[in-house]
């Protein structure tokens, strides 16, 4: 075991990460931050509503939506996949409600049944159509931030904004922020006191399903960076950390961003380490809990399989 973990090399791990190949690394770090921020903001509401594991469920069950959209359209365009994942996310919420409202099976068991079933369907689709689908199972399941392509660049009126996936994620983050701000009051009230929200005339069910739809949208955009299984860490860890530090929701939301930023910095260490030792053990403990481990998912050789789902796909921006 010992030869697996080489001695810690400060120069290579901390310094060279930022100096060597800094431009592309900067984009990747920015991408990590955008993903983490979008997930973390929504995650706050999940934690408050005690629905953390619904987040886990949705992140698993968007898989058949992705695979199905791909099989139907036979291209990796973001938009069909996005729609497929969104549909799968909504189906998950509806199915969970159908089981636990209509039978005596409790909600926790209903969640467990629904997401494992959908996830199994997704894994099976990828396994069966592996020869026809350019979906890399590893990439879908665990994500790989380094595969985020830096081409093509998005240009708006002569301005070069940046690599397309980064811009897309930025757009999703912006949408999240706008939606959360627009419905902040409704979300706040219905998260803390459902009864009061109802008596105020807020459509609690609508808010619930809207939140779930937003969650699916974010999860699918975050897919290529973090994969299906570990999105829950992005959703819950920053929010839970913030919850420990603050009592007021606005402060929590702000803290979430800070925590995300910290964990993204840790990504640098993990990435450098993984490049050198092909394996990462926890080093340099700090307050960001384990999120860095997720970012530091070690490279699977890019030539080991098709990784197209992680490739840049036509932007959402192209649609607008």
């Amino acid at each position: 075991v010992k030869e697996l973990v080489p001695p810690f090399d400060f120069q290579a791990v901390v310094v060279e990460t930022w100096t060597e190949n800094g431009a592309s690394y900067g984009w990747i770090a920015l991408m990590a931050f955008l993903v983490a921020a979008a997930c973390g903001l929504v995650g706050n509401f999940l934690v408050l509503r005690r629905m953390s594991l619904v987040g886990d469920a949705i992140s698993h069950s968007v898989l058949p939506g992705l695979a199905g959209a791909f099989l139907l359209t036979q291209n990796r365009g973001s938009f069909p996949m996005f729609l497929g994942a969104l549909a799968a996310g909504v189906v998950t919420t509806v199915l969970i409600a159908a089981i636990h409202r209509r039978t005596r099976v409790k909600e926790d068991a209903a969640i467990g049944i629904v997401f494992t079933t959908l996830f199994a369907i997704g894994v099976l689709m990828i396994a069966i159509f592996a020869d026809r689908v350019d979906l890399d199972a590893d990439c879908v399941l665990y994500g790989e931030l380094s595969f985020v392509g830096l081409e093509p660049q998005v240009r708006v009126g002569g301005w070069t904004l940046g690599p397309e996936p980064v811009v897309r994620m930025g757009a999703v983050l912006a949408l999240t922020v706008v939606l959360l701000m627009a419905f902040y009051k409704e979300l706040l009230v219905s998260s803390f006191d459902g009864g009061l929200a109802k008596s105020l005339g807020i459509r609690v069910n609508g808010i619930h399903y809207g939140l779930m739809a937003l969650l699916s949208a974010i999860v699918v955009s975050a897919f290529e960076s973090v994969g299906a299984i570990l999105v829950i860490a992005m959703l819950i860890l920053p929010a839970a950390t913030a919850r420990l530090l603050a009592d007021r929701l606005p402060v929590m939301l702000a803290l979430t961003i800070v925590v995300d930023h910290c964990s993204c910095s840790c990504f640098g260490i993990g990435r450098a380490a993984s490049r050198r030792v092909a394996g990462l053990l926890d080093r340099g403990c700090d307050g960001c809990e384990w999120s860095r481990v997720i970012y530091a998912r070690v490279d699977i050789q890019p030539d080991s399989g098709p990784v197209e789902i992680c490739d840049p796909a036509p932007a959402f921006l192209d649609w607008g």
Partner: protein
Amino acid sequence: MPGRPVLPWWVFVLLASFSVEAEAAKVSDISPASIGEQAVRFFSMQDTSLRYALLGSILLGITCGVLGSFLVVRRLALVGDALSHAVLPGVTLGFLWNMTKDPAAIFIGAVISGLLGTFLVGCITRTTKIKEDAALGIVLASFFAVGLCLMSLIQHLPTGNKSGIEKFLFGQAAAISADDLRFMAIVTVITLGLVAALYKELLTSSFDPGFAASLGLPTKLLHHVLMFLLSAAVVVALQAVGVVLVSAMLITPAAAAFLLTDRMHRMVLLAAVFGLSAGVMGAFFSFLGNNLVTGPLMVLGASTVFAGAYFFGPRHGVIARWWRQYSRAARIQRENTLKAIYHVLERGEFTEEGVGVQSLAEHRRETLPEVEQQVRTLLHHDLATLNVLGDTVYLTPLGWQRASEIVRNHRLWELYLTNAAEIAPDHVHEDAEKIEHVLGEDVVRELERRLNHATLDPHGRNIPAIRDVHTRGRTAPRTVPSGYGGRT
């Protein structure tokens, strides 16, 4: 619930699920060998590895089903999910211990990291304001991430026998060896033995922890024992289902059994049977599809069983429930029509034998076709007859009985609310409209006794007496007008 109806139901569900799965497999025909040949090979049990895979699936199905029952009734389903992810670092460390797939080392590692995970969940919820769901998510994600890192560490090893470790994620029943199988059998026997020995204690602490504690049962210890057994079950299932989907094998068969029965021991048995059949289905279709990932197939088998129980469960199934609601609504509709006929007859002081459909429609303030439709359902249930012209309804003896019962229930309840609950007489009608359909015979007796067999309701109308209700024949209320005689 009596044992008899259960058996045919789940047999039916199993058969149905088998046939559904078989069709699904044909669609996914990707194997070079024909499906038929593979199926023959499967059922002839020629291959050793196939026999191992099958036995392994059976063992895991039984273990997961039995333990899952306790998870489901204790509402710990998502703890099962978190735990199954949390064993991953232990599994990989067990693998790293001497760089082989040594079942014992993997088992010890998995149990330690599983227990550590549940312990951490407990710590987080006890010491901070973070709720259990978030704590579960934190532990699940953190442990799984560590496990993944360790796993990729193993995959990047320059030397060593690393084959099979990646199968732990999604499972491959065909990879089960004789050693694995022996170990799985031992763990299964120990697990089932412990559950059998502690059955009473587990049962009590699952359904009423307070009562269990007052009996002096160590409920906390029992919880930890259950977590220990769960980790063991996850290890048993590891080879065939994989870490990611073990929770489905824990939750889904048990939830299906939960829908079919009300007794714990029956639920445990059913869940074991469901788990077993899901395991066999998974192994079968995995073999059929040339070693397709086994885990998802098993999970889909279990989900099919659950879907069967969800729709066709005799008591808690959706269709049965829908049918009960539908027939209750239809009965209430019939009873309201009967009541209307009674009211019209009462208005004529029971001098008429029949009621004109037209006057019935006027009384109910509904259109003629609507009332005719309602009368037809009465005819269908032998509650009324029509004359030749089809414009007058006559109640049959049975119809008389039901109509008087409903009116009696309604008026008794109105009287009871006015007298006992002191509600104003003009406020009691709405409530009585609902309760009249569900009052049982014994409740009515009790009401009559408490109201001293009163004959008039708060609005001054007669309450049909017991003898009217049970008098057979249409003539009775006519010759002895209801409520007038006998009780003065």
